[in-house]
């Protein structure tokens, strides 16, 4: 078997054999696929995260034991915190992919229509996805500072080493502060809007909605998954804020 070398192309009598420069990977749809797959990784993680949070309803010991088990999971096959770090690495890679694809497509959309309409309102959904996504990104940074890295405890009476070593106490102390609750509720509103469209959109991008019926079902599923995750996330902080847990 010989292969056609590009050098000889100019010697060919016809130009029917032009070298192919088009690939599926170089398209905007490939960027969307990256967005969809990384988004689904986040949905999977959010479900696990929300499940862990609900342990707060089972009391201090159950919650703290769960937090401890996250680190000892898989021992002795895995090192201490091994699974946790594996998950974190997957999340960081997904975040890079998701944000990269989002900004590439966002900037593309901007240059695809430089002159705006005088009389058209931009669809609210696209604003929620983009600016909502940026808000969620900022929130995630704050959330990591709050609970993972610095362990900010804004509740002055309860500051101290005792709290930072006790995840349950850190959570309770945090959500007894009203503005902390507001930050988290706002983030959940943004998350709901993002997931509602995002989960539907991922199914559409993966090509799973090839009929009007499947398309409508995917929309309902997006709404359902978004509602389920956000309600599960809201239960613990609101229970603390309204004094059901203390």
């Amino acid at each position: 078997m010989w292969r056609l070398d590009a050098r000889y192309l100019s010697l060919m009598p016809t130009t029917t054999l032009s070298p192919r420069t088009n690939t599926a990977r170089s398209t905007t749809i490939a960027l969307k696929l990256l967005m969809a797959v990384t988004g689904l990784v986040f949905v999977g993680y959010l479900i696990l995260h929300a499940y862990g949070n609900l342990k707060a309803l089972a009391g201090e010991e159950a919650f703290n034991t769960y937090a401890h088990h996250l680190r000892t999971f898989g021992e002795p096959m895995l090192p201490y915190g091994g699974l946790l770090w594996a998950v974190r690495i997957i999340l960081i890679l997904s975040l890079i992919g998701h944000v990269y694809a989002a900004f590439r497509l966002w900037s593309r959309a901007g240059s695809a229509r430089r002159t705006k309409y005088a009389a058209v309102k931009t669809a609210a959904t696209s604003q929620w996805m983009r600016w909502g996504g940026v808000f969620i990104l900022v929130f995630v940074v704050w959330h990591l500072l709050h609970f993972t890295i610095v362990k900010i405890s804004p509740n002055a009476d309860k500051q101290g080493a005792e709290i930072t070593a006790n995840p349950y106490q850190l959570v309770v102390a945090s959500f007894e502060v009203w503005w902390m609750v507001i930050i988290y509720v706002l983030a959940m509103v943004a998350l709901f809007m993002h997931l509602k469209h995002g989960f539907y959109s991922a199914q559409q991008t993966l090509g799973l909605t090839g009929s009007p019926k499947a398309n409508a079902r995917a929309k309902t599923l997006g709404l359902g998954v978004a509602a389920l995750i956000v309600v599960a996330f809201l239960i613990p902080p609101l229970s603390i804020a309204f004094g059901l847990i203390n």
Partner: protein
Amino acid sequence: MSNMNLTLKIWRQAGPQDKGQLVTYRVTDISPDMSFLEMLDVLNEELNAKGEEPIAFDSDCREGICGMCGLMISGHAHGPEKTTTCQLHMRSFKDGETITVEPWRAEAFPIVRDLVVDRGAFDRIIQSGGFISANTGAAPDAHAAPVPKDKADRAFMAAECIGCGACVAACPNASGMLFMGAKITHLGELPQGQPERDARVVSMVNQHDHEGFGGCTNIGECSTACPKGIPQDVISQLNKDLRTAMKNGR
């Protein structure tokens, strides 16, 4: 319904490189039975009589089947009804209303003049792969390649696309995915479309991106604006075909 008086704000632009602006016109005694384009014809006759330059807009069949006309009317592609601009009637508007008329806005559809845009980008997308290669000669027997009813129906539904560009005009990202999805679905559902299926989707999407259209974010403004009601699931089909082509090493 009595005749109407309307205020029109119309985009005027002398040429591709010129700066355009919205110009306000008044039209009086407009019959509610006129089509939107006939109303513009009336205005143009008045402008002609005054020695002013008439407003340039595209139209051809005026039966809603050719896809030539298309205006952004008060923020809606083809106006408030689900039809083409030529089949939109003035009874859809209220007496005394102010109507803003703009051309399709997309860098891939450069403005030629006033309300006329160049939709050659759509032609180039079709040229890149939106066809089947068939030998010339006697037509094959119509029964030679059986097509299941549901596939034939979906292919016909997708083939209804008239390439007017309303999907691009309405899309917040100025994406041409509904147009492309319609063509991919149309040919992909039929046996004749199979041999070139993977190459077609890869070439068309690359051409689409090369023309400067935006990416799809599945908002659905395109289907809402489409005068033929092409649904969102053709975009899902497009995405699936691209993913399959990727898997097959394209």
